[in-house]
């Protein structure tokens, strides 16, 4: 889950988003805290220094008092001139201001009783007199305070955006994972009744899950319908056929003593059995295709099953004087043992059927690259490359084998069974002959 989250595109987007926002936030913070403070104080200091320079020049020319009077006419300037004993000499300020703070090196800040904020610098003349020049910075400092607040607010907002983007990405990832997991489980188990869990109703993903669930329900309905149709075929055609067979059996009893009649009835019974066999195989294939897992999987060794298949078919092979040397290495796997037996019984049956008398059949199994692999190869005519996919179709028969016995369902059943066991099947050229490779995932 966590791993999946870390690898997801949403997480990567969230990470990128967060990093960009962090960088932007840091830049904004720096501008707010440093640049503004610097800028507005510096401009105030420049004005104060200019004022002081003018007054110093006036002092040198003995015009200090007159110049102070001139300066104090400006509404935003405060001037205080004191002697060595800190006694008032001149200016519109009568005494040192109270609650003085140091704003910066050499710059003081204070608030007057009228709530105006001032920045001030002090110059000491050579004769010991002190000159204090203040400048009203109320407007600028209010602006600065507001900017500072805006900066803090934007940082908080950014933090919220970061947190939200994480939450959204988690939300999206958990939901897309849920959809993917449901789909995977449906594929693995063939259980079409599964649905995606929905626990909210406001987001697009829930809406999508809802639509997907409707889609799945429709799909299930259709598949179920197909299954129903094939079950109906089974029911509707197999039942009368069986009745026919049973009637023939009774007829055969009635014909006791008439060997010629009984033989003909036996042929009819055999034909009916053939038809019933085709229906049974057809139904079995569609069942395997629609219901992926047929039985609780059991653990067994493929080599044992193959040994039993060989043992079962050995008399048939012997009758055709075929040579075979099964090479069966231990191959522990998990699955439906009966179905696996069926797969190799069909394959071996084909191999025996198509290999000319006196030919060879190769049967082997074992573990290869972590998979359970089995091989059935014959020395018969083989299957042309272009037809290798088609022979798995129902009723598909190769040119030239149409006259031979068999329903044309053997390989279709084999493939359906292999897929139902989550296996793979491949037809290859054994030059000459057909080489069938079947592989399964090993027992965990």
């Amino acid at each position, binding site marked *: 889950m966590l791993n999946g989250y870390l690898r997801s595109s949403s997480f990567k987007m969230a990470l990128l988003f967060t990093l960009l926002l962090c960088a932007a936030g840091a830049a904004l913070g720096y501008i707010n805290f440093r640049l503004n403070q610097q800028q507005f104080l510096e401009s105030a200091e420049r004005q104060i220094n200019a004022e002081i320079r003018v007054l110093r020049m006036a002092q040198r020319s003995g015009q200090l008092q007159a110049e102070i009077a001139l300066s104090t006419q400006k509404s935003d300037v405060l001037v205080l001139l004191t002697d060595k004993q800190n006694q008032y000499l001149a200016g519109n300020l009568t005494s040192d201001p109270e609650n003085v703070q140091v704003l910066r090196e050499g710059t003081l800040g204070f608030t007057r009783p009228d709530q105006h904020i001032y920045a001030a610098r002090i110059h000491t003349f050579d004769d010991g007199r002190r000159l204090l020049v203040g400048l009203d910075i109320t407007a600028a400092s209010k602006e600065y305070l507001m900017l500072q607040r805006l900066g803090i607010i934007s940082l908080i907002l950014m933090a919220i955006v970061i947190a939200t983007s994480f939450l959204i990405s988690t939300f999206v990832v958990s939901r897309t994972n849920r959809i993917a997991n449901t789909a995977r489980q449906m594929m693995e188990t063939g259980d079409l009744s599964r649905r995606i869990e929905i626990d909210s109703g406001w987001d697009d993903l829930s809406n999508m899950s809802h639509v997907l669930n409707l889609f799945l329900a429709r799909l299930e309905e259709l598949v179920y319908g197909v299954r129903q149709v094939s079950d109906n075929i089974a029911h509707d055609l197999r039942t009368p056929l069986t009745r026919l067979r*049973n009637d023939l059996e009774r007829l055969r009893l009635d014909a006791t003593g008439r060997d010629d009649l009984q033989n003909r009835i036996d042929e009819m019974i055999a034909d009916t059995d053939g038809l019933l066999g085709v229906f049974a195989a057809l139904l079995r294939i569609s069942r395997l295709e629609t219901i992926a897992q047929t039985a609780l999987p059991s653990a067994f060794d493929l080599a044992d099953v193959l040994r039993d298949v060989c043992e079962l078919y050995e008399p048939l092979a012997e009758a055709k004087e075929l040579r075979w040397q099964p090479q069966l290495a231990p191959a522990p796997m998990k699955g439906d043992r009966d179905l696996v037996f069926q797969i190799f019984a069909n394959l071996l049956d084909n191999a025996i059927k198509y290999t000319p008398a006196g030919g060879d059949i190769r049967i082997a199994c074992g573990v290869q690259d972590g998979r359970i692999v089995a091989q059935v190869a014959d020395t018969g005519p083989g299957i042309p490359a272009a037809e290798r996919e088609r022979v798995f179709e129902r009723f598909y028969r190769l040119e030239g084998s149409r006259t031979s016995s068999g329903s044309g369902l053997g390989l279709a059943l084999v493939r359906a069974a292999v897929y139902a066991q989550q296996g793979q099947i491949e037809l290859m050229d054994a030059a000459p002959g057909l080489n069938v490779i079947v592989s399964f995932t090993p027992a965990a």
Partner: protein
Amino acid sequence: MLNKGRDGKMRILIIEDDPRVSGFISKGLKEQGYTVDSAQNGRDGLFLATTEKYDAAIIDRMVPEPDGLTILRAMRASGNQTPVLILSALASVDDRVTGLRAGGDDYLVKPFAFAELLARIEILARRKPVVEAGPARLAAGDLELNLLTRKASRAGQQIELQAREYALLEYLLRHKGQVVTRTMLLENVWDYNFDPQTNVIDVHISRLRSKIDKGFSTTLLKTVRGAGYIIED
């Protein structure tokens, strides 16, 4: 040991809601000398199964109210051990397994040939037809199978059998006098439930026959056409 009726016939109970199937089974079984009771629904079936004594019961899985498996479980829960053959339209292995787990003794998929049903009922109704000719021995006519030494002989003459031939002969002898179908052989001798594409079982039987019957005047292992095989004295 069997609960034969007053007339000495074996009694079979059929619980099946399809009257055609039910009628056809019951007609066939009566012709074979069985006494047959049939129930068309689960309630009547369960009543008959628990109040009367039968040699075997044939129960359709899909019979209504209650269904076949419920009847079966109820029978087994009350200690009723009557052999039960389950009929079902469901062919998958899962269904077979649930049917047998519920306490069924055998399972037959619909539609079925009557010969197959009859063979299975004969075996169920006369289960354990103890035919051992002595301690750990099975015999038919002058053919003997020693279960301890796993050796077969006919008229005192030793017969060499391969493992599967031995198993085949043992199964046939255990059901001496009863028809054994190809499907039953696949399920019991080969222990696989599958659909052979060819007459591979017949080939095994003819091999066995050539070993036990060749050169003797009487044929013990006979083919029952349209049904299967039988071994008789």
